[in-house]
């Protein structure tokens, strides 16, 4: 990881080579239960408390498919303009690694439920790129391993490993693009735009939490280069562990500059899995891939085939949300935005979160002002996307409602948002726990006003003498005395009443 790796200047890379991308996105469905058993899927539960004989692979247990997960898979396929297979099966992917206690992963293989689709992406400058979708198939997630005794929690040097199977069996959809060619220097940008658009689509479908930071959306980036003018693909690498939108862009860019240096030096790119390192944006070699044959796939005998009827598919098609392009057009009209304003919101990743906040009851203006100012600052400080902030649009809408009902002032509302971001619970929990409700009781406020007037008699005299602007100092004193929990406008009214 610390060895110096040769890279080529990016401009030179794109002058000499054409990049070809393939993106594989794994998305954990937000079903209540696992793919093949009734165990809960709650994130962050105590280790091995969401397990049963089926997901532990105990003898005699049998899997049964989660119908809701299959519906989500079909809806995802339809939203990606895919064909839905009239008949398909699961297979067993056999391997020897303890993250699956069964010694195999139940996954679709050569019969994906959805295939041959496409998705249009809009790049930050407004240009549209169409990405082909090879397939979307169903599988199950693996358990989580903890490697003990090694230097950095990695396998290398570990004395033993500890397994938590809560995640083993959580429904997973793998979405694979067709090779993305001809985007040249824009390849890193396109990769990021694709994952962003896919995330927004999955969120609109309400099938997943799509939290890259929690692993419910994970991206592997396949990258290869070929000399310009050559039609065959070069050897590709697969970079794993790319856990944010920004990392997707960086990982693709890095692999392009690294592979270009290898090729220019007369070397050969090794087909391998590489790990992405968030700290410096580099990748390092992982294992040499086992071939598909080594997994000895065969049809899963314990699960019957899936044969979605036309009626079922059409019923699910009827539940799809608006298409992103239509949705944008409607939003632009509803919110009365200029093209430029809409583009700015899109580039800030703010449209979907604002829309969801509006859906949860806020007005477009209110929702917009929170997401593009205070929350944008918080996201910026943390180096994350707006959607990755640990506050939901519904929570933001609740804060706005509390401000509108007079229960919070704007400055209290920011403290409530801080509390939610700090993981203290829903807005109402934070208000209660931090004691942040507005002091709206006039008698309590009058007492504070009297106290402040008495403490600054000269100011009080000025106000009485008609210098209304002087009231500001008293308002400040009262706000301080009430820990900013008073409504400043009301305080001012009370002061003027007292001094009239």
């Amino acid at each position, binding site marked *: 990881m610390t060895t110096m790796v040769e890279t080529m200047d990016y401009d030179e890379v794109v002058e000499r080579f054409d990049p070809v991308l393939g993106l594989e996105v794994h998305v954990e469905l937000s079903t209540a239960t696992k793919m093949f058993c009734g165990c809960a899927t709650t994130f962050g539960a105590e280790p091995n408390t969401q397990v049963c004989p089926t997901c*532990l692979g105990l003898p005699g247990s049998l899997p049964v498919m*989660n119908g809701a997960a299959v519906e989500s898979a079909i809806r995802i396929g339809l939203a990606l303009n895919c064909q839905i297979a009239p008949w398909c099966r699961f297979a067993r992917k056999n391997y020897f690694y303890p993250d699956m206690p069964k010694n195999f992963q139940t996954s679709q293989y050569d019969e994906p439920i959805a295939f041959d689709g496409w998705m249009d992406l809009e790049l930050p400058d407004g240009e549209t790129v169409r990405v082909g979708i090879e397939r979307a198939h169903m599988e199950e997630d693996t358990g989580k391993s903890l490697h003990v005794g090694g230097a950095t929690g990695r396998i290398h040097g570990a004395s033993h490993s500890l397994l938590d199977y809560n995640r083993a069996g959580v429904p997973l959809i793998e979405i694979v693009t067709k090779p993305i060619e001809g985007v040249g220097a824009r390849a890193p940008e396109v990769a990021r735009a694709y994952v962003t658009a896919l995330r927004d689509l999955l969120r609109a479908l309400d099938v997943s939490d799509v939290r890259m930071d929690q692993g419910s959306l994970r991206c592997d980036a396949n990258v290869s280069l070929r000399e310009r003018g050559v039609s065959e693909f070069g050897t590709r690498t697969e970079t794993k562990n790319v856990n944010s939108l920004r990392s997707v862009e960086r990982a693709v860019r890095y692999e392009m500059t690294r592979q270009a240096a290898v090729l220019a030096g007369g070397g050969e790119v090794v087909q391998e899995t590489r790990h992405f390192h968030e700290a410096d944006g580099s990748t390092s070699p992982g294992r040499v891939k086992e071939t598909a044959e080594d997994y000895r796939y065969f049809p899963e005998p314990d699960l019957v085939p899936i044969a979605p009827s036309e009626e079922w598919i059409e019923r699910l098609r009827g539940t799809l949300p608006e298409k992103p392009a239509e949705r944008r057009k409607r939003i632009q009209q509803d919110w009365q935005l200029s093209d430029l304003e809409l583009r700015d919101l899109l580039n800030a990743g703010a449209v979907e979160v604002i829309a969801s906040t509006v859906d949860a009851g806020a007005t477009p203006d209110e929702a917009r002002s929170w997401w593009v100012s205070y929350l944008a600052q918080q996201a910026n400080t943390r180096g994350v996307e707006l959607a990755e902030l640990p506050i939901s649009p519904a929570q933001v809408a609740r804060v706005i409602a509390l401000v509108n009902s007079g229960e919070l002032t704007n400055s209290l509302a920011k403290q409530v948002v801080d509390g939610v971001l700090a993981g203290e619970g829903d807005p109402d929990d934070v208000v209660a726990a931090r004691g942040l409700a507005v002091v709206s009781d006039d008698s309590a406020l009058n007492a504070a006003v009297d106290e402040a007037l008495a403490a600054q008699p000269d100011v009080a005299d000025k106000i009485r003498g008609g210098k209304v602007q002087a009231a500001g100092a008293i308002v400040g004193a009262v706000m301080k005395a009430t820990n900013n929990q008073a409504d400043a406008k009301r305080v001012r009214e009370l002061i003027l009443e007292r001094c009239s």
Partner: protein
Amino acid sequence: MPSISRDEVAHLARLARLAVTEEELDTFAGQLDVILRSVASVGEVAAEEIPPTSHAVPLTNVFRDDVVRPGLTREQALAGAPAAEDGRFRVPRILGEEQ
């Protein structure tokens, strides 16, 4: 021609992270060959018009409602494990690369 070569047995042993001696390779290759030949005899009866069958019963679309059902407690889950630590299954050092 045996249906499985000595090299293929060695490859499978490597995938399974099993240390198999040279002598054992010969033994296993011979034994597996007998098993594979027996299974292959089924293929001789299968005629052209019989499609490959993965399921004996012609059922499709057997689904479960997405409703949580109680599983095992952690104690029950770990009860059969050869070793446990910190509420997790403890396994020996994993050889080879990370998945």
